[in-house]
């Protein structure tokens, strides 16, 4: 891990988003370093997804800025990128895993086609090589090669999420955004998915921002945690520290409301 740059990968400053009179997210500042997993937790409506949208430039902020260190080492203000550059970034150096796999996958296109899409978008034009790469990534996410020509609508929920991850990993992104990636999955399937994500983080030095309302997921995956309430960050710190010794009353409430099995 010595090759990692000391500078943060992504720096958000004063991110604010208003929906009319309502506040989606107010004055959020956040650094993300290479190989670091940051969990954003909070109850429904606390602005988690808005923050994810702002960080990934899918939403335009009302105020604030997001800087990103590109692969060439140059830091760029994301809002100043052209739309073409932003799209390119979003599907090469970034990944996005949705809670609902139907948003992240083409349900009418085979698993191989889904994984190959990013490659074809960046100019791969050799069928055999695209397919070999798709097989490699299906292996990595533990989907049988024999399913390569099956459509994701024949896949189980857990497989769909793993396919989404394969689809994103194929261009070796450095930063991946996940919106409730384990939502709606049963516990054993969740565990397998979390294991997989952890493996990618350590193997590829992947950085991730994971939005979740599940503190167990945050504890298992993330290095740092950001607690949000009413659109504001109320507490942030190392995951274990925040979860074991929460400072804010609201965080204490969150932690206390986990069912102990």
């Amino acid at each position: 891990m010595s090759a990692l740059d000391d500078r943060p990968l992504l720096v958000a400053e004063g991110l604010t988003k208003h929906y009319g009179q309502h506040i989606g997210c107010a004055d959020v500042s956040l650094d993300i370093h290479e190989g670091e997993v940051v969990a954003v937790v909070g109850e429904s409506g606390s602005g988690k997804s808005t923050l994810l949208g702002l960080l990934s430039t899918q939403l335009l902020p009302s105020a604030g800025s997001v800087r990103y260190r590109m692969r060439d080492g140059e830091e760029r203000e994301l809002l100043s990128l052209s739309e073409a550059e932003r799209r390119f970034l979003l599907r090469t150096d970034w990944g996005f895993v949705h809670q609902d796999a139907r948003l992240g996958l083409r349900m009418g296109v085979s698993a191989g086609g889904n994984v190959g899409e990013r490659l074809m978008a960046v100019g791969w034009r050799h069928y055999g090589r695209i397919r070999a790469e798709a097989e490699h990534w299906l292996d990595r996410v533990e989907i049988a090669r024999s399913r390569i020509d099956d459509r994701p609508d024949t896949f189980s929920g857990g497989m769909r999420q793993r396919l989404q991850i394969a689809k994103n990993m194929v261009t070796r992104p450095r930063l991946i955004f996940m919106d409730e990636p384990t939502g709606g999955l049963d516990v054993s399937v969740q565990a397998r998915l979390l294991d997989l994500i952890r493996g990618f983080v350590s193997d590829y030095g992947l950085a991730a921002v994971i939005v979740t309302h599940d503190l167990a997921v945050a504890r298992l995956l993330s290095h740092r945690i950001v607690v949000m309430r009413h659109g504001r960050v109320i507490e942030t710190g190392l995951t274990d520290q925040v979860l074991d010794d929460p400072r804010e009353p609201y965080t204490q409430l969150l932690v206390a409301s986990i069912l102990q099995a």
Partner: protein
Amino acid sequence: MSDAAVYNFAYLDEQTKRMIRRALLKAVAIPGYQVPFASREMPMPYGWGTGGVQVTAAVLGADDTLKVIDQGADDTTNAVSIRKFFERTAGVATTTHTSDATVIQTRHRIPETPLREGQILVYQVPIPEPLRFLEPRETETRRQHALEDYGLMHVKLYEDIARHGHIATTYAYPVKVDGRYLMDPSPTPKFDNPKMDMCPALQLFGAGREKRIYALPPYTRVVSLDFEDHPFEPTKFDRGCALCGAEGIYLDEVVTDDRGGRMFVCSDTDFCESRCTPPRTAAQGLNEVPR
């Protein structure tokens, strides 16, 4: 032909033709780009060539000679009625001979006789957007065109190979125009794709229901998309025309009886007739096949 007097020349009013010509000029200036236009209701149903008819009406002059083909044939309902339509409303000369025509409106074929400079080929287009079945949002496909973001089209070809072992798209085979725009060549068979490349004639495409016009100026590069290890191949036939014996042309399969009898004949009727002795005609041709 007293009817001609009650219609404006070529049916459409002058303002409408002017609007269409403006769209055409823009389309010619940006080869392969779909220009929106205010498509009019025409006295025929959508799907019968309302886009092509409007483009033809806009480019037709009094001294033009018009040919209309439908799947290569001059004698099918669609071709005959559009030809009659312009005979009545514009009083222009019509022909079935490709080389005599100055404007050719076509549905799904390019004539076998090579086109020359000065000719205009007008295509009827049902769905102008090549990405439509992969991406239903018009806002998104427009953005993809604007950003030249065409990876999705290869996903379609990838799916073909994954499913069938080869690129199974045989018509409406996507092309890249002048190294820039992705274009649907209308549902012409992929056999005709190479004819679009560097064609000396002006090629105009009209989609009436979808309200889009696009164009290929003469001598424009038109490249069919493919993979390095699965290159584009035009359809090949293992036989010649049963009537005129021509080879290397596009054939139609014709069922001749109810006992499984069939024959393969030129889809381009004009081309076939010009080669047959005695000439093949619409009425007798198929019945008089020597067994």
